C-alpha cells in the first residue's frame, strides 16, 4: 500500500456522530467484485440532502475528513474505506472510531486519528469558515498542524504507525514468520473441527 508520512490538504467537515458504514457506502454497491471504483458511490443516499456538502466544489478536493464520535460503526464492509480512499481521502480525523472500521482503514493506508471533541469541533468550524485553508498531518511526529498555526498531538498504535510509514503489506510480514506458523500447527494446533468432510456433502 502507499506509505503515509506527512500530508497537507484541505479539510472536509462531516458534522455527525455514529455514521455507519451503510451510510458511507450503501449495500447496493457491495455486489461488485472489483476492488476499485467505489468512490463515485460514497455517501450515496445523502447526496440529495439539503446541507450535504462533501461533494460540493468547495470540499471535493479535500483529502482529510473530519467527523464526530463512533465513525464507521455497523457492517464490517471494507468497501466503505475503499470508497473513502477512492474518493481521495488519505486520513480521517474523528472523536472516535468503530473498531473494525479503524482496522480496515489502516490495512489499506488510510490514517485514522482520534482527537478530543473540542479539537474536532474547532477543525470543523474552521473548515466551514475558511474552506480553502489547509492543515498538515505529520505522522512521524504525530502532530496535526492547523491552518492557524496550532499543533495538536495525537496518539497512534506503534505497529500501525510503522506499517503506514513504510507502506508494508501485512501478508508478506506474516509470511516472514511462516516457520512459526508451521511450528504452531505441528505442536499446538487443536484437533478439528475440520470442514473437509463437507466438500462432497
Amino acid at each position, binding site marked *: 500500500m502507499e506509505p503515509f508520512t506527512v500530508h497537507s490538504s484541505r479539510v472536509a467537515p462531516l458534522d455527525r*456522530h*455514529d455514521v*455507519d458504514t*451503510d*451510510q458511507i457506502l*450503501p*449495500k*447496493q454497491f*457491495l*455486489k*461488485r*467484485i*472489483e*476492488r476499485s471504483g467505489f468512490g463515485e458511490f460514497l455517501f450515496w*443516499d445523502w447526496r440529495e440532502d439539503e446541507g450535504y456538502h462533501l461533494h460540493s466544489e468547495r470540499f471535493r478536493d479535500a483529502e482529510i475528513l473530519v467527523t*464526530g*464520535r*463512533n465513525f464507521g*460503526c*455497523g*457492517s*464490517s*464492509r*471494507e*468497501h466503505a*474505506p475503499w470508497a473513502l480512499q477512492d474518493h481521495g481521502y488519505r486520513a480521517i480525523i474523528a472523536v*472516535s472510531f*468503530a*473498531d*473494525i472500521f479503524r*482496522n*480496515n482503514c489502516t*490495512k*489499506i493506508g488510510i490514517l485514522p486519528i482520534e482527537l478530543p471533541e473540542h479539537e474536532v469541533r474547532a477543525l470543523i468550524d474552521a473548515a466551514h469558515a475558511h474552506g480553502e485553508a489547509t492543515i498538515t498531518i505529520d505522522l512521524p511526529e504525530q502532530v496535526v498542524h492547523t491552518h492557524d498555526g496550532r499543533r495538536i498531538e495525537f496518539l497512534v*498504535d506503534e*505497529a500501525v504507525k*510503522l506499517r503506514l510509514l513504510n507502506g508494508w503489506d*501485512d*501478508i508478506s*510480514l*506474516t*509470511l516472514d*514468520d*511462516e516457520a*512459526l*506458523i508451521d511450528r*504452531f*500447527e505441528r505442536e*499446538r494446533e*487443536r*484437533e*478439528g*473441527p*475440520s*470442514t*473437509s*468432510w*463437507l*466438500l462432497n*456433502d
Partner: protein
Amino acid sequence: MSTRTMFQKIWDTREVRPARDGHPALLFIDLHLVHEVTSAQAFEGLRLAGRGVRRPDRTLATVDHNVPTRDRSAGIADQLSARQVAALERNAGEFGIPLFSLSSRRQGIVHVIGPELGLSQPGMTIVCGDSHTSTHGAFGALAFGIGTSEVEHVLATQTLPQARPRTMRITIDGDLGLGVTAKDLILGAIGQLGVDGGVGHAVEFAGSAIRALSMEGRMTVCNMTIEGGGRAGMIAPDDTTFEYIEGRPGAPKDYAAAVEGWRRLPSDDGALFDREEAVDATALAPQVTWGTNPGMVAPITGRVPDPEDFEEEGRRESTRRALEYMGLRGGEAVEDIAIDTVFLGSCTNARIEDLRAAAAIVEGRRVASTVRAMVVPGSMRVKARAEEEGLDEVFRRAGFEWRDAGCSMCLAMNDDILQPGERCASTSNRNFEGRQGKGGRTHLLSPPMAAAAAIAGHLVDVRSLDFDLDPA
C-alpha cells in the same frame, strides 16, 4: 498461577507469536467462515500474488447475503448478485474450500450454519468477513468480524495480526419476565451502555440471566454485541453449551475429553477485567427501537422521546434527525405506531427456537390486513426442521410468507426490500437509515413481539394480549 479471564486463556493458547518490536501478536485462526460479499476481492488478491489458501480444511463458505429467498429454481435474476455468487463458486472450487451454494440443503446465514453444524466450539478463534461474527462467542469462543484485507490474510496464512483488545464484563442478573427474551436483554443493555459503549473491548456476558438463556438466546446476545461497539462478545461454556454441541456433525469424536477441557475455560474467580458493567434483567420490559441506531430503544410500554428531553445538543440533534427519518413525533406512545411489514429473520433471530416462539403467538390467529409478513429461516436446516414440526403451516395459515434461507430483508441486498416510508417490525439487528431499503423505517424487536405486531397491525406489548407465552 495468576487468575485469567476466558478471553486471556483463549488468546494465550492461540498466540503463534506474541507482540514484539512494534508488531502486534499473531493469532492462529481455528475456523474461517466466508460469504459472497466480502470475499471476492480477497481471492483476487491471492491470485494476483500467486498465493494459495493455507488451510481449506479450516474454512467454510456459504452464500447468504445476496440470494433470493423464493423461486430458487429460477436462479438469481439480479445480474450483479449472480456474478458475485458465481465468483464464490469459482473461488471455492479453485482453492478447495467447501461451499454451500444456492441449491445446498445446508445453505444458510453464515452465523447460523457454523453453530448448527457443531463447528463453533468453546476455546476457538473464529473469524469471518462480517461484523456479526461475534455470534459464535456464545460458545465461549473468541469470534470477531474482519475486513476483506484480513480475509485475504487469513486465507493465505490461517493467522491474523491482532492488537489485544481491553476486556469488559457485563453482568446481567435477575429473572427475565414472561414474554421478555434475549433480544430484549441485549437491546436494553445497548440502550443503557450506548452504541459505542463496548468499543475497543472484548465483552464477556455473565450473571444469572445469561446462565438461564438457551444457546439460541446466548447467540442473540453475542450477535448484537457489535451493535454496542464490542469487538467480540463471549459467554462462558457450561452444560447448556455442551448439550447443544453434542451429537452435531462437527462435534469432537472423544466428546467427554473435549468437555473436560472446555470446563477449564471460564474466567477464574477473581480475574480482573478492564471494565465492569451491570444490567438488571428483572425490571426489563420488551424493547423496541424507535430511532436509527440500536441504542435508540424504549420499552414497549414507553414513549418515543422528545428531542428536548436531552441535555446535550448533539443528542438533541441526532434525536431530531432520527425522528424525522422515522416519521415519528416525540412523546408518541410506542404502542400507537402502526406497521406495514413484519420481517422474521436474520442471524440474530431466525433459529428454530425463534420460529417456535413466534409460531406460538401466531397459532390460530391472522396477520392484520394492512400488514405484509414474512418468515425467512436462518438456514435450510432450520427451515426443514420447522417444517417437520408443522411451523410452516402455522405461519402460512396466519398469512405469513414462508421463504428459503438467507439474509433477505435484514440488509435488503436481494429483492426483499422496503419501499421509502414503509415501516417494518424486524427481528434483525440494525435499524440504520436505509438498512432495509432506502427510506425504509425499521423497528427492532424480538420474535414474539414481531409476531404480535403482525397480528395487531401496530407495535404492541406481547404480554398485554391474550397470547400463549410459553411455547413449551
